[in-house]
């Protein structure tokens, strides 16, 4: 039964006839895909946390860095949208790299980027949960002992266990249930952000100065001008502020690796497409990721300008410097009068002299965390499943329980090592210092994908020639190649900065050892699997070998 016709909107003739067949679905809403992309570039959970390190480069112009990052990351969005259009159902980086670069490279980059490094993201998320929810909420409610304990190693480790339990439940329940939770979190979280912005917009810097001093005294027992004491504490730790308007190109570029902590992820957007695609479907992955990135950037610009106006740029940087320098025991550093992480949301709440309101605001803004953190192991479980189906990992890794469909094999491979890494993160300060390794490893995985995209038109000419993007060329060069080259330069630049400069904490010997162990482990697993499977008569090299057509 052929019962459908399709054509360009407004066209006088149909482009194709469709018959009734399984899987022919109408396109998903671009808004749904945008929401996912917007969540992944999470302004509050990841953004505020990541930007709290930027004080390390006081002469880097943050606003300019954000905009430069947005432009460069747009090329990454173009690259990924192109790959999605060429190979829509392949499951992302692992499959793209495996098909273009080979199974070994695909496996090593995918498992390090989407499996091993997520062990490190678990305690990082746990720390964000502490500093953006447990600690400020407890402090606001007057439970100063709880606030102090939450920020201690024990509190951080327990938070990691709570987070892992939460993530495990989300993975077990499945994305459909969680997607509903995400939508609720999205709208309420946005409303919370609007309240924060309104508060910062309507109050003056002197209002904030007074409010900060008031709450520092009320909640933390600080005496005198806590606002000024915070700036002084930063100075003692060696921080010297620069005017917001100061611009120097190199320091501004050095800020980019910090921003990658949250702005590098819009490509987590849509990867699933209908089988018979119309014109609009080709553009959907691009626009959903593009708007996810640029709406966030617009909000970041707004928040930065509001903080500049009401909180004061010197104070914002100084508060971060004072907190982190004291935590990392930097020479000369002293404890700031407000000893918990400088959370701009909490500061905005200070502008209303009501602790209940402040607690509600912190709770509402925590929905930015709970609406996203549940997906922490989503990609990991998929990569583990794919590797198990490819016989690289044992088949039990892809097992799911019969009754509740819990992927216990992959969950065990995520949660058990994540507990170990969380313990190290909580009790070994040197491990906390290489927080940015978690971003760098994924950036390297992205680089593998980007290289795949650059050479795709020649390496997999058959796929490229048959794809909708074959007509997008600039001066005869495929657009995906051009976008890929720009993205590769962008990623390589950041990888160089992470590896070269000590200010990111990722070029220490311990960091190098951690990275080395993860990559060696991935290589060892792949080589061991090849040997074992070869003895079983299974050639892993054959998985991605294309069968001749003729």
């Amino acid at each position, binding site marked *: 039964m052929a019962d459908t016709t399709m054509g360009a909107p407004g066209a006088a003739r149909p482009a194709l006839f469709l018959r009734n067949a399984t*899987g022919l*679905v109408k396109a998903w809403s671009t808004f749904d895909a945008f929401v*996912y992309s917007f969540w992944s570039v999470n302004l509050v959970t990841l953004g505020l946390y990541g930007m709290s390190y930027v004080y390390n480069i006081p002469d880097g112009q943050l606003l300019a860095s954000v905009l430069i990052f947005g432009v460069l990351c747009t090329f990454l969005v173009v690259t990924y949208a192109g790959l999605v259009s060429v*190979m829509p159902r392949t499951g992302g980086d692992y499959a793209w790299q495996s098909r273009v670069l080979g199974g070994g490279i695909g496996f090593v980059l995918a498992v390090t980027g989407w499996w091993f490094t997520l062990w490190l993201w678990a305690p990082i998320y746990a720390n964000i949960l502490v500093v953006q929810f447990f600690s400020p909420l407890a402090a606001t409610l007057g439970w100063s002992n709880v606030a102090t304990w939450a920020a201690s190693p024990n509190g951080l480790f327990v938070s990691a266990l709570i987070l892992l339990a939460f993530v495990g439940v989300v993975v077990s329940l499945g994305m459909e249930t969680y*997607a509903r939770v995400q939508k609720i979190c999205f709208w309420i979280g946005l409303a919370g952000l609007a309240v924060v912005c309104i508060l910062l917009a309507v109050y003056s810097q002197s209002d904030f100065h007074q409010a900060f001093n008031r709450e520092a005294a009320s909640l933390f027992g600080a005496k005198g001008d806590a606002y000024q004491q915070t700036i002084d504490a930063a100075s003692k730790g060696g921080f010297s502020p620069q005017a917001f308007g100061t611009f120097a190109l190199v320091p501004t570029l050095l800020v980019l690796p910090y921003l990658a902590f949250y702005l590098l992820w819009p490509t987590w957007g849509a990867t699933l497409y209908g089988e018979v695609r119309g014109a609009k479907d080709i553009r959907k992955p691009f626009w959903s990721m593009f708007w996810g990135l640029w709406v966030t950037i617009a909000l970041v610009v707004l928040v930065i300008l509001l903080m500049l106006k009401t909180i004061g740029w010197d104070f914002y940087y100084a508060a971060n410097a004072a907190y982190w320098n004291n935590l990392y025991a930097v020479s000369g550093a002293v404890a700031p009068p407000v000893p918990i992480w400088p959370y701009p949301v909490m500061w905005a709440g200070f502008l209303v002299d009501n602790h209940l309101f402040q607690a509600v605001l912190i709770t509402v803004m925590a929905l930015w965390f709970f609406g996203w953190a549940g997906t922490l192991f989503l990609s990991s479980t998929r990569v583990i499943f794919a590797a198990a189906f490819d016989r690289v990992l044992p088949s039990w890794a892809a097992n799911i329980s019969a009754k509740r*469909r819990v992927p216990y094999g992959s969950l065990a491979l995520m949660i058990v090592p994540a507990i170990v890494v969380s313990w190290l993160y909580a009790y070994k300060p040197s491990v906390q210092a290489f927080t940015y390794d978690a971003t760098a490893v994924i950036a390297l995985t992205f680089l593998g994908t980007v290289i795949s995209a650059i050479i795709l038109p020649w390496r997999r000419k058959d796929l490229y020639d048959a794809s909708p993007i074959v007509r997008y060329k600039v001066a005869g060069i495929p657009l995906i190649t051009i976008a890929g080259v720009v993205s590769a330069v962008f990623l390589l630049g950041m990888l160089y900065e992470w590896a070269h400069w000590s200010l990111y904490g990722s070029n220490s010997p311990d960091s190098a050892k951690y990275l080395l162990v993860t990559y060696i482990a991935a290589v060892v697993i792949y080589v061991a699997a090849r040997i074992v499977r070869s003895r079983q008569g299974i050639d892993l090299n054959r998985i991605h070998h294309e069968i001749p057509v003729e």
Partner: protein
Amino acid sequence: MPKVFFATDLHGSEMCWRKFLNAGRFYDAEILICGGDMTGKALIPIVQENGHYTFQLGAERQQIEAAQVPDVEAQIRRKGYYPLQMSLERLHELDADPVKRAECFQQVMLDGVDRWMGMAAEKLRGTGIRVFVCPGNDDEMEVDDVIRRSDFVELGEGRLVEIGEFTMISTGWSNHTPWNTHREETEEQLGERIEAMAKQVPDVSKAIFNLHCPPFKSGLDEAPAIDADLKLLHGGRALRPVGSTAVREAIERHQPLISLHGHIHESKGAVKIGKTLSINPGSSYEEGMLMGAIVQLDPKKGIKSYQLVNG
């Protein structure tokens, strides 16, 4: 020790069918099984007008010369669509009349299947490779007749087939889907259909259940959630199990050596249900990639090895 190559849900992709026919030599497999849904979902008109041809594959309508038509037709077939040359008047006629459109589509589709049967015979006759095809729920009933007429390709639907010491039963019928396709029935009816074959299997420890629809809640049956309007929910990320409870019950009851499935393209995987290894190799027909499973059978061990491949 027969080596089996199983692929499914080719949906009209001629590139995938050609690869399927070459898979025997490529993987040293003596048995090729096509698990169903071999016919395409879309027909692309190539309209002859004013001395040239126009067609639309993707975003924009393109104009080509007569000499380019064969290449365009090959490109369309590669994606699993059917190209059909026609006049502008015929295009409008088909657009306006659902009955004529359905008749035209069916004819093009059956011609396509017939062509594939001919290609199989031409390429594999005399090689010792056996080819089984079992149409799926998306394949119209008339497809079976075309396959039956083939003197080389063997129809699997509804019968027991001996593969060395192993016995295969096959059906392309599925439980009900939102698309109301050609071979759908209630779980009870599907259970009876499978049971009618399964009870005749002499030794279930050497049985292959080639059942198009995957078992319910097996991990091989997770499809994107859709609403009543067939619109993907939650950006296509929310998955639901849509397999058949009847298929699951049959596997759990009889515990065949292996069960082969398709139907849900996104749900590639291999899982154990009791003693049974259940496989869905998935499908990426629209990319021209043949996803398949190689299974090395052994009369003593049962399954010596298996591997999912993207050929």
